[in-house]
C-alpha cells in the first residue's frame, strides 16, 4: 500500500486512507442502518412465485460469514472485502497501465 501511494504524484497515502475510511463508513451504514434489501426484482419475483437461486456455492452468501451470522461478522467481512476489492482493482489497473508503458518502451502505438 505504501509503495502504491508514494509512486503517484497526485493521490497520496493520506488520500487513499481518507477514501478507504469513507468506504468503511459506507460499509458500516450498510450493515447497521441500511441493511434491509427488498429490491423491485425480488418483489416482482415473489409475486409470481419465482425463486432466485445461485448455481455456484459462494463462500459468503448474502454477505454473511458462515458460523458468524451476526452484524459484526458482516461488518468485518464488508471491511475486508472493501480492502480486497481495492487491491484487486489496483492490480488490474497496474497490469493495464503496464501494457501502456511496455508499448511506449517498444515504440508501439
Amino acid at each position, binding site marked *: 500500500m505504501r509503495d*502504491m501511494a508514494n*509512486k*503517484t*504524484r*497526485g*493521490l497520496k497515502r493520506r*488520500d*487513499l486512507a481518507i*477514501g478507504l475510511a*469513507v*468506504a*468503511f463508513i*459506507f*460499509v458500516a*451504514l*450498510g*450493515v447497521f442502518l*441500511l441493511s*434491509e*434489501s*427488498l*429490491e*423491485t*426484482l*425480488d*418483489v*416482482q*419475483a415473489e409475486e*409470481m412465485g*419465482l425463486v*432466485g*437461486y*445461485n*448455481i*455456484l456455492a*459462494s*463462500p*459468503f*452468501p*448474502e*454477505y454473511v460469514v458462515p458460523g458468524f451470522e451476526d452484524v459484526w461478522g458482516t461488518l468485518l467481512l*464488508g471491511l475486508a*472485502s*472493501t*480492502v*480486497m*476489492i*481495492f487491491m*484487486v*482493482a*489496483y492490480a*488490474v*489497473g*497496474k497490469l*493495464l*497501465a503496464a*501494457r*501502456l508503458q511496455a*508499448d511506449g518502451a517498444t515504440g508501439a*502505438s
Partner: protein
Amino acid sequence: MHIPDGFLSPAVAVVGFIISAIFLAVAVRKVGKRLDERMVPLMALLTALFFAAQMMNYPVVGGTTAHLLGGAVLGIVLGPWAGCISMTVILVLQCFLFADGGITALGANILTMGIVGVFVPFLIYSALSKLSKGRCAVVWLAVGAFLGDVLAAIVAGILLGLSTPVFQYGLEIAVPAMALHHSVIGAAEAVITVAVVLTLVRVRPEIMSLSPSMRSLVRVSGAPSKE
C-alpha cells in the same frame, strides 16, 4: 439490480454474455493504451468506494429498496472504458464471493450496470458539456448520473421482460416497475455523483486533469492543474 440465476431465459443470458465480452475486450485494449499510471490508485479507490456504497440499501417506492450503482462517477472520472472494467471487478467479486447476482446472469449484470450504467452518464455528460461549452457542468453531471441509473434499470427490465416465460411478467410490467423504482435511487445517485466529483476536483485537481472528461470542470473550478 443484481439479477440472480433463474430469472433470465438462456437466450437472453447468452446475449448478455456476448455483448459484455465484446465490450470488455475493447475496454482492455483501449484502457491498456490510454490508462495513465497516476490514475490507477484513484481507479482502485473509486472501485472500493462504490463496492461499499452498493452495500447500502435505500428505501424507495412501495416498501422496496435500491442501492447506488456508482457507474456515473466511474465512467465520468475514469473514462467509460476504465469505468466499465472497474464496475466489472465489483460485479465479478460480488457474484463469486457473495452470491450477489447469479453466474448465469453475470453477462446481463455487466451489461446493465457495467456498460449502460457507466457509458450513459459519460456520454450524456460529455455531450451536454460540449454543447454548452463547459457551462453548467455540475447540472450535466447530475443529469447523466440520474439517466444512467434509470436507463440501466430499464435495460434490466427489458432483459427480464424478454425472458418470458422464465420471468412471467412481460416488458409492459417489468420495464416500468424497474424504471419507476430506480428513478428514486437515480436522484440519490445524482447527488452522490456531484458530491464525489466536485470533492475530487477541489482536492486533487492535478489528478482530475488527467481525465479528459474532467478537464473542463477543473478549468471552470479555477483549481490549479498540473500534468
